[in-house]
């Protein structure tokens, strides 16, 4: 509290200067009065003179202190500039650390996502033999390329035909409730999923050794489709069948 109540050097200097002014004026007035009235003063002027000397000495000491404070003030200004420079450096460093944190956070996040993907892949892993088996099965259905002995006119397609769909499970399931309603032999046969021998097409390329849909492709040829008497909707869908020598199906041999 004493430190807070302590007057600044400026206030003290101005106060002492005011005292000096008042005392010097009083002394001069007193001397002028005593000379004009020719009355000796009972030592009052001596007291004022002593006070004046004392105040003058105090004033000089305070001026010396003020000059010292001025030098300290210069040093403080230099230190303030140092502090400002350090603050700028710290802010720059803070900015760089923020950027680094952001980059690292992004990298860590991406790494975690990749680890999750790896973990997920490991959990759902499939043996390579099974994948090759499925690939072989897909290739064997002639969906990848045409069979070796395919010629224009062959009703075989890279997709299930109408007859093949009806002879499958879905065809059986769809036709079960209507069994006996339709008395046509071909319809029953179709519903049962069996083709009668009369309706089975016979072509020169067919041999007893060849099972439909099990031949792996070996050649790369382009075929144009114009099968005689074949289903017209299949004709519209397929205009050409190509074989690819770079097919992904494996060699069954």
């Amino acid at each position, binding site marked *: 509290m004493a*430190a807070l109540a*302590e*007057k*600044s*050097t*400026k206030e003290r*200097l*101005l106060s002492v*200067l005011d005292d*000096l*002014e008042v005392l*010097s004026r009083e*002394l*001069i007035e007193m*001397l*002028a009065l005593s*000379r004009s009235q020719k009355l000796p003063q009972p030592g009052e002027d001596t007291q004022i003179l002593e006070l*004046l*000397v004392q105040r*003058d000495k105090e*004033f*000089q*000491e305070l*001026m*010396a*202190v*003020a*000059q*010292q*404070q*001025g*030098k*300290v*003030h*210069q*040093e*403080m200004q230099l*230190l*303030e500039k*140092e*502090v400002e420079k*350090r*603050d700028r*450096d*710290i802010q720059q*460093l803070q900015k760089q*650390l923020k950027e680094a944190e952001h980059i690292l956070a992004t990298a860590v996040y991406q790494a975690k996502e990749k680890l999750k993907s790896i973990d997920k892949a490991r959990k759902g892993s499939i043996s390579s033999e099974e994948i090759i088996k499925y690939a072989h099965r897909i290739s064997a259905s002639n969906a990848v390329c045409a069979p070796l002995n395919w010629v224009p006119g062959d009703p075989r397609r890279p997709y299930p035909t109408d007859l093949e769909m009806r002879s499958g499970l879905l065809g059986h399931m769809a036709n079960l409730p209507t069994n006996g309603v339709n008395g046509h032999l071909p319809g029953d046969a179709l519903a049962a999923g069996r083709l009668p021998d009369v309706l089975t097409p016979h072509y020169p390329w067919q041999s007893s050794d060849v099972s439909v849909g099990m031949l792996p492709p070996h050649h790369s040829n382009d075929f144009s489709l114009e099968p005689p008497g074949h289903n017209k909707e299949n004709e519209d869908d397929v205009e050409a069948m190509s074989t690819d020598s770079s097919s992904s199906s494996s060699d069954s041999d």
Partner: protein
Amino acid sequence: MAVAQAKLGKESDDCSLLPLVHDIIKCMDKDSPDVHQELAKLKTKIQEAREQISNMPGIESSPPEQQQQLATLREQVRTKNQLLQKYKSLCMFDAPKAS
């Protein structure tokens, strides 16, 4: 150091008002017409001293307060230097040694 102290002594004598008061009293004793001139000089000197005091830097606080402010600034500079040195020399990304 001696030169600085001599300069300081001269400056202190320059701001003393006693020589002017003495000149005024001497003029009054001699009944000299210069007494008014001397009075004007004293008045001018007092006014100049007031202006000089107003313009002097660093005297808005007392000497102990100023010393405290100086110590605080020095501490700030020291702390910030330390902080900067710490973070510049800190290596956060030590590469793990291959085992």
